[in-house]
């Protein structure tokens, strides 16, 4: 019976399968975060301008800033979630490679068994 599994090759293949998912997921999370943080800064600056011009009271300005704080916390949670999704995709892609390699190795091992029935 022969169980041939090239560990180095499998590890390399697993990495190759995982990396694109991490890269794509990372890019998606980064683009989303960058856009939302920019919006956050623009909006906070706008509130500051309105307060300086007397269009909104200090109390109203604080209320608006607090509203944005809650929104940006939800943005951060979304970014975290996108990261988790990317990690899940990467791990599963790597596991898939491992599963196929094991299947192939086990298949070859079973083929060489001579059943003595």
């Amino acid at each position, binding site marked *: 019976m022969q169980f041939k599994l090239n560990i180095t090759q499998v590890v390399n293949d697993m990495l190759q399968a995982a990396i694109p998912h991490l890269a794509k997921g990372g890019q998606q999370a980064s683009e989303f975060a960058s856009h*939302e943080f920019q*919006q956050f800064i623009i909006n906070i600056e706008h*509130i500051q301008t309105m307060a300086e011009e007397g269009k909104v009271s200090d109390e109203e300005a604080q209320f608006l800033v607090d509203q944005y704080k809650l*929104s940006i*916390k*939800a*943005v951060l949670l979304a970014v*975290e979630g996108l990261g988790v999704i990317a990690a899940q995709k990467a791990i599963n892609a790597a596991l898939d490679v491992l599963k196929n390699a094991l299947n192939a190795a086990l298949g070859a091992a079973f083929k060489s068994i001579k059943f003595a029935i």
Partner: protein
Amino acid sequence: MKIRKLSNSCVAALATLSIMILASCASIQLIAPYDERIENGITELQKNTTEFFVKIERQGGSDNNDYNNHVEFYDNSKVAMKCLLIRAGATAQNEKTEDQISLLMEKYESLEKQHKTIGLTPYTIPSLEASFDQIFRAILTLEVAKKELNEEKEGE
């Protein structure tokens, strides 16, 4: 006869081992699956909230005396939020969406308090609308990403 027994037990052991190894290589799940009801619920809330802000903006703001005319909006939003929060909490590994919905709930509570005590002046409306849009976008971005994950899995 002995050889046959040995060979059979060897095959059985290998089969068990292979099943165990393959089972350990099954896919993992780190985040809750996509939930259509969450996406639809948030989209509906977003629509109602936008309608509310458009109405307030059109009437040139809303002071605390006018608050009573909008109680229905706050009540409906609270009910919808509670339903979504319970729904999200009922699914394992859904803490991020659950926390996002809790933050949205906090926003409605803060908005209602402001409306009830001070009122909503015209200059605050665009900023408020933009801040609500941002949180809706955040919740939907995560939910849509989960949807794509589900679709990819089904496609395999």
